[in-house]
């Protein structure tokens, strides 16, 4: 087994979010989620649809950084209007960021503090409300800590399981928060009340460290270590998807 970085491990954990998704649009916001989606397509999820980050659906996932002779094969066109249509039709799984995320998977990317007078204005709601009510959503949090994993988010952009439950099973039947990947571990909501569960810790990280850096009580059961990248995955990441090492410059922690 080759040596690997934490960023490479996280890219593989993010790729794993898409396992079993079939023929849907794999959307990813941010460098490591993008690598993850592209890696999934090139390895265990070949039916996924991948974009160039803009409007083209590419049959061959492009590398990060300069194209260096890469020839994209465009298999489809997705202007924003078509993206909204297909996401409302449920043919998508997105990995978004989360400035704050809570125990039931509510996500905030809108602002910090009282939304009427925010202490810090962030991106806005973006597509989070529509994504989370319409199709599977996962999250990537590169800076796991009590300020990002919070007891209660300041604003609910993407809805979590408590909000979904309050809507009733019919209205929320397409809601699914698949996974959360942070720089410390992988989490899901497969518990009786859909509270967040620590699924795996990254190599070198202890469960206690994760608990200490989380602003609410995590469920810990059947804990394992996040799986290492395979040699084939490392080759795809280093030679094919990120030859200039963009991921290595991503801040973690």
């Amino acid at each position, binding site marked *: 087994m080759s040596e690997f970085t934490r960023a490479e491990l996280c890219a593989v954990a993010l790729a794993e979010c898409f396992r079993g998704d079939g023929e849907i649009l794999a959307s990813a916001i941010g460098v490591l989620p993008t690598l993850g989606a592209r890696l999934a397509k090139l390895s265990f999820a070949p039916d996924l649809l991948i974009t160039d980050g*803009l*409007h*083209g659906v590419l049959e061959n996932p492009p590398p990060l950084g300069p194209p260096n002779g890469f020839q994209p094969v465009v298999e489809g*066109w997705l*202007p*924003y*209007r078509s993206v*909204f249509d297909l*996401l*409302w039709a449920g043919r998508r799984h997105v990995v978004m960021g989360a400035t704050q995320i809570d125990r039931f998977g509510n996500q905030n990317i*809108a*602002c910090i503090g009282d*939304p009427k*007078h*925010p*202490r*810090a*204005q*962030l*991106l*806005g*709601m*973006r*597509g*989070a*409300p*529509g994504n*989370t*009510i*319409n199709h599977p959503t996962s999250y990537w949090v590169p800076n796991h800590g009590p300020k990002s994993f919070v007891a209660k988010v300041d*604003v*609910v*952009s*993407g*809805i979590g399981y408590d*909000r*979904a439950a*309050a*809507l*009733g099973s*019919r*209205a*929320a039947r*397409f*809601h699914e928060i698949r996974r959360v990947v942070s720089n410390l571990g992988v989490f899901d909501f497969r518990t009786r009340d859909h509270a967040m569960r620590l699924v795996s810790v990254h190599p070198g990280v202890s469960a206690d460290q994760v608990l200490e850096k989380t602003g609410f009580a995590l469920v810990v059961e059947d804990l394992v270590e996040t799986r290492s990248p395979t040699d084939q995955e490392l080759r795809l990441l280093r030679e094919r998807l990120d030859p200039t090492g963009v991921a290595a410059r991503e801040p973690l922690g």
Partner: protein
Amino acid sequence: MDKRTTAAAVVRELRDGMTIGIGGWGSRRKPMALVREMLRSPLKDLTIVSYGGPDVGLLCAAGKVRRVVFGFVSLDSIPLEPHFRKARESGKVEAHELDEGMLQWGLYAAALRLPFLPTRAGLGSDVMQLYPGLKTVTSPYADGEQLVAMPALQLDVALVHLDRADAKGNGQFLGPDLYFDDLFCMAARRRFLSCERIVASEDFAKAGSHHTLRLSRMFVDGVVEAPGGAHPTECPPDYDRDEDFQREYAASAKSPEAWQAFQARYLALPDEAAYQAAVRAR
């Protein structure tokens, strides 16, 4: 038929307190020449409806805005729009936050002269509390499903920028995405289109197929030829985003002095030609 006009004449039609929709997306193909002309006017108390970029940031920084209806405000390569952040954090502008798809739905409802359109997007999120007056509706059919009733976003005026137009007001987009420019125009009482170049109608076919003709003169009241009129936002294939200039613009939010210097250099100028000259002179 000749709908050619000037940016100054367009802005003379605007009034304080109007609801103005601005096309494009983030820092992409924004009608910035028209926005800059608004900055030269005494307009105030505007409600801006936008997939926001530097259009929203500039109008907020210049004190023109009372309220922003938005799904996001971003410069793309710079994720957070610094002037908009400042305006929000100082409490100067009111935020009517929507999911991106809900914003489209509100424009579409207004375009089709419907009071609302139903959608699942927004259910359970804080948009339901934060967007004033937002209500749900129950399906009248057997499913009885509860949905968001996204109200029509009726605009007083729409401003959009495309690559080409003819004098009659037909617009042609040559880039990868029309965004929602057609809906902005259909949702508005008065509609103004700026473009890189006004061409004869028969020249449309030389630049692109009929698929690129997505804005009809039925929904356009005035056409302004404004080469470079989307600067610093991108307007492909005519030009990319001016990233250097955008960084300079973003840095001008750092202090009142920096903003004053930016204004003096690029905005407190008599017209768009002077702006373009100042940009070239950097």
